[in-house]
């Protein structure tokens, strides 16, 4: 039944920690070597932090799982050295189509503006992304990742964490300054700390399957409400590399696992969808329900939760994997700064606030899509029918059609690290929003603005913005001097003129923006960014 991708096994290797009389101590241990744990590890190692990753298995993700890699994730992956591989292998798409019955209701373009390095999305099986991250991590530190190391016990102390680990050769213990829990929706670490995971579970069951099929369907996201081949339910078709196609079929709350996962049953459903002629084979299938849950706080002393261990959403909107990668992106520079003694521990409180806000936004969007796709009460079904009927003729109604609001970068509007605007701005990213990339000319050659902002704190400023120089560990990118804005897109996207300056965080979000700032104003914004705001 399974074909296509060949899963290799990663070898367990005994570590020196297992032969010590007393537990070895590490600055950072990451529990879970999945998409988010690996992203976290690469980010931290790139910042010079020594990391140990513990994974209970010996394989990458089985099944394609989180396939839609959003633009923001691609930007983060660029910084981590795997963006080009994801773009090269992935199926680029910007267009989505929504059908009702056998009619196209409308199409949407997620990236109407040119001058972009990354598309709105590439589709790429999660196992490929994990392989790229594993290989990148091995380049940086070949010993960082420990396969078949299962976290079994966690004792959170005030200034360190004790971890019990089980391997094929028996157990051992380590201690660490910080434990990052990236161990998924059924997080062992969350369980060990006895933390509740409140939220909502949804009844509807969905069949998710990857098929291998040669097809001329375009690389677009196609979503059907009430398609002729699957009456009364929803369906999704989405292209992945290697002629793999994701198909997602809503089955309703009564669907039975034993019945629905029978191969003949799945094949019959797919035949109805694809027609009698099309040759395909099933690479992976699974029946799922989903939940929207989050921890109240993502930081518990020396234990910090990221990804599905911290929050979980429905798949509509591609907000699970992309949300988790943004968690790691947000936490990496802060933890590195705290470990280096450059920022107080309080800086980590902003991770909880910022990513908590992002998780709430993801959960809100996810619930709304779910309620539209699977109406829970008669009034919801009535209005959904009205919206879908109206949408054919009335363009305004298409805005209500919700087949999933696709992941965009979070804007940290309530961030304690941001310095509020002191004057009105009519263009450019506000404090907390991600700083957009743009094509620029660097030393006469075409490049990208983000490549100049990587990793550290940056000031992007116009040619006459004073007082931007002379700040410790801040890179200044000055228009006309360091870069040339040949296309005018930087000026447009940032509202940048000769006196404007943007203070950009190491994760590429805006911390503050100024017109003709004083040295003191920039210094104060920098202090705030590093968790040292005057109370």
């Amino acid at each position, binding site marked *: 039944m399974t074909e296509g991708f060949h899963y290799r096994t990663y070898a367990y290797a005994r570590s020196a920690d297992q032969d010590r009389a007393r537990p070895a101590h590490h600055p950072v241990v990451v529990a879970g070597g999945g998409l988010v744990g690996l992203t976290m590890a690469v980010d931290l190692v790139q910042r010079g932090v020594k990391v140990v990753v513990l994974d209970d298995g010996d394989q990458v993700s089985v099944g394609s799982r989180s396939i839609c890699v959003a633009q923001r994730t691609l930007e983060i992956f660029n910084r981590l050295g795997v963006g080009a591989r994801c773009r090269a292998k992935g199926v680029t798409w910007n267009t989505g189509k929504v059908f009702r019955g056998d009619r196209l209701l409308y199409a949407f373009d997620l990236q109407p503006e040119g001058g972009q390095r990354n598309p709105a999305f590439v589709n790429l099986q999660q196992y490929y992304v994990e392989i790229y991250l594993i290989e990148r991590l091995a380049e940086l530190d070949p010993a960082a990742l420990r396969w078949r190391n299962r976290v079994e016990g966690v004792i959170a102390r005030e200034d360190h964490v004790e971890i019990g680990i089980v391997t094929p050769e028996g157990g051992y213990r380590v201690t660490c300054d910080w434990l990052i829990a990236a161990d998924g929706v059924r997080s062992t670490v969350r369980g060990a700390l006895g933390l509740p995971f409140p939220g909502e579970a949804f009844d509807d069951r969905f069949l998710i399957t990857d098929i291998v099929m040669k097809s001329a369907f375009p690389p677009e996201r196609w979503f059907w409400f009430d398609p002729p081949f699957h009456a009364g339910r929803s369906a999704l078709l989405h292209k992945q590399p290697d002629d793999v196609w994701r198909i997602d079929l809503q089955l309703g709350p009564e669907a039975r696992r034993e019945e629905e996962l029978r191969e003949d049953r799945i094949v019959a459903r797919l035949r109805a969808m694809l027609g009698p002629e099309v040759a395909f084979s099933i690479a992976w299938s699974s029946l799922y329900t989903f939940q929207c849950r989050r921890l109240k706080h993502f930081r518990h002393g020396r234990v910090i939760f990221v990804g599905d261990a911290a929050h979980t959403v429905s798949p509509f909107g591609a907000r699970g994997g992309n949300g988790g990668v943004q968690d790691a992106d947000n936490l990496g520079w802060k933890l590195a700064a705290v470990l280096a003694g450059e920022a107080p521990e309080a800086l980590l409180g902003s991770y909880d606030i910022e990513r908590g806000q992002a998780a709430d936004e993801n959960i809100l969007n996810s619930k709304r899509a779910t309620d539209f796709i699977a109406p829970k009460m008669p009034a919801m079904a*009535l*209005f959904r*029918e*009205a*919206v879908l*009927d*109206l949408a054919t003729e*009335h363009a*305004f*109604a298409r805005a*209500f059609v919700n087949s999933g609001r696709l992941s965009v970068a979070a804007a940290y509007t309530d961030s304690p690290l941001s310095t509020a605007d002191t004057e009105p701005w009519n263009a450019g990213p506000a404090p907390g929003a991600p700083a957009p990339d743009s094509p620029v000319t660097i030393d006469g050659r075409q490049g990208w603005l983000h490549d100049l902002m990587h990793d550290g704190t940056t000031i992007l400023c116009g040619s006459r913005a004073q007082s931007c120089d002379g700040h410790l560990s801040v890179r200044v990118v000055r228009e006309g001097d360091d870069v040339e804005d040949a296309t005018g897109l930087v000026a447009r996207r940032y509202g940048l003129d000769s006196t404007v300056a943007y203070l950009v965080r190491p994760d590429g979000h805006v911390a503050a923006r100024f017109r003709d700032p004083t040295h003191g104003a920039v210094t104060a914004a920098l202090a705030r960014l590093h968790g040292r705001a005057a109370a």
Partner: protein
Amino acid sequence: MTTRRGLARPDDIYQALMAAQSGLSPEDAERFRARLILILADRLGDDAAVAEAIAAARQDLRRATGA
């Protein structure tokens, strides 16, 4: 809720509302009203005004029936 603008011919509008539903089954009448609500919300073109209208309708129902 404050009335934003008075209608010039409220009786005509009321009659048109009733006429549009006359002869409809209760289910189709409900379908009609759902469409009308969505179209009116769009015509209002003001998120806050729509939210205020929803709250006012719900509050009035609560006052009238306790629901």
